[in-house]
């Protein structure tokens, strides 16, 4: 049985094919990353798992429970941290958490609520009204609300978007602990270093399709593994532009082997460019991500290969 199983799920919103047939299987206890540019379909997929959106075709299961036919059992096993920063202005933090637990039939669980509050740095805000909290604090409450019924499967939709370093640290420590204790975690994020550090497997989505799905280590190994980084004050020679990523003065160029590194340096030299702070390193997940996203759209990855 898989923690999350998605079979041929498609969904169209008017002219936009948000999901064009997705197959995924997340094993129990995995820390799984779902990456992709904006509009790739990540949130639509999560919404389908949570029952917020319905698929046009295909099916999805949480721990073997179909999200439509057996929605009660599916949702009891699932905790979702939504992307939008939403809150109910009528209640205090503790009230909101008690109420959320009560919906799932969980009550008299103040000990767990206290533990959640302590681990998320909210202990002194328990009786504060939701309106009085800062954005980061509200984000923490969203996480606590998703966990209040102790779901075995936790889905976080960009939980660290726009939050400070401290919260990111607190949050990841806590989520990593829950994963270690046996919770399955499915995460979408724009911070690829987070995904690289936390996720043991990663799926990349593009235009509603899975375009890469592998162990994080295999993804990093199986692509252009060398990266030239340097600073440059002059425009880059045009022949290098296609394979480079330029952020202000910082240029990063992928190279597949030592010969290609030499050829890049020769091209720079011929164009009278003098790179500063030159370093040669391993490609990181961001490089892999860009390479995959810039590649031509591959065929849909067949279900049989994904699930078994």
């Amino acid at each position, binding site marked *: 049985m898989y923690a999350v199983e998605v079979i041929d799920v498609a969904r169209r919103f008017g002219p936009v094919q948000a999901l064009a047939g997705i197959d995924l*299987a997340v*094993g129990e*206890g995995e820390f799984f990353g779902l990456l992709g540019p904006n509009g790739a379909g990540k949130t639509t997929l999560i919404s389908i798992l949570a029952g*917020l*959106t319905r698929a046009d075709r295909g099916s999805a299961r949480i721990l073997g429970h179909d999200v439509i036919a057996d929605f009660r059992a599916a949702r009891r096993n699932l905790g979702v941290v939504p992307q939008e920063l939403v809150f*109910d202005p009528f209640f205090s933090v503790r009230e909101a958490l008690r109420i959320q637990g009560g919906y*799932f039939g969980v009550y008299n669980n103040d000990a767990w609520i206290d533990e959640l509050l302590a681990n998320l740095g909210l202990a002194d805000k328990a009786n504060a009204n939701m309106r009085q909290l800062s954005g980061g604090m509200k984000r923490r409450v969203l996480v606590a609300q998703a966990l209040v019924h102790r779901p075995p499967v936790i889905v976080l939709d960009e939980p660290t978007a726009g939050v400070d370093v401290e919260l990111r640290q607190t949050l990841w420590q806590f989520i990593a602990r829950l994963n270690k204790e046996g919770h399955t975690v499915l995460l979408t994020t724009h911070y690829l270093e987070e995904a690289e550090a936390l996720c043991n497997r990663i799926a990349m989505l593009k235009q509603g399709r899975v375009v890469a799905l592998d162990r994080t280590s295999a993804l990093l190994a199986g692509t252009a593994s060398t990266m030239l980084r340097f600073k440059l004050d002059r425009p880059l020679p045009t022949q290098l532009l296609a394979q480079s990523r330029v952020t202000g003065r910082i240029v990063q160029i992928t190279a597949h082997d030592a010969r290609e590194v030499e050829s890049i340096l020769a091209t720079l030299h011929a164009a009278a460019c003098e790179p500063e702070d030159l370093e040669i390193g391993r490609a990181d997940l961001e490089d892999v991500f860009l390479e995959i996203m810039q590649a031509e759209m591959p065929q849909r990855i067949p279900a049989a290969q994904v699930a078994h």
Partner: protein
Amino acid sequence: MSSLGAPPRGARPLVAPAPAETPASVLSGVRTLLYKEVLRFWKVSFQTVAAPVLTAVLYLLIFGHVLEGRVTVFGSVGYTSFLIPGLVMMSVLQNAFANSSSSLIQSKITGNLVFLLVTPLSHWAWFLAYVGASLVRGVVVGAGVMLVTVWFAPLHLAAPGWILLFTVAGAVLMGALGLIAGLWAEKFDQIAAFQNFLIMPMTFLSGVFYSIQSLPPFWQAVSHLNPFFYMIDGFRHGFFGVSDVSPWTSLAVVGCSLVVVCSLCLMLLRRGYKIRH
């Protein structure tokens, strides 16, 4: 194993799946949502309870002052005595509608409805809790209006059973109608339009302020098409033992309306109309 990587299994201990649903957990879900909905209006009771009571008292003072002594109804009933039950029932109905409709539209617009959408609560649970809270708000406001206005004129309780029956049926009907409006509306002004162009005229033209016997035959016939008339008339029968139409007729009309509105409401909730996309 495929080149795409298969999920690793059994490497670490796993958290047990959530325990299966029990009648107690389902009941807890409904009770929690009901509690949350009641707490929501109670926390702003100045606006949700005190204000409608004040409005009803103002109606009583103004209309009672102008018309007391000039109008008698059902033979010997004074105008103020006649008006009080009408105002009570009007408050019950309007507030029952306002509670479910405004709660739902607020949650939809602010986005916090997601907290409810991800729960295992069924459409029945939503219905029972939202309509239950509407009933509580309707009864609280109605009792408030009654408590304040009862000092202005003598009132009898000829048949309290009818009073109770029409209070519950009317509030449930309006709570369910409020849910439908809340599901349908996408903006606050659509709820306001529903309230101002449908609920208000129909309650005002239902015989709260006059007996429809005093109307010309044409408008009497029109009033008979208004389901609100039967709610008010049946409710009033409980006080005076007399009414414009038989309470059994009123019960039949209100009962049929109740079935239609509740069925529609449950159907929309089941489909996730405008809330699950």
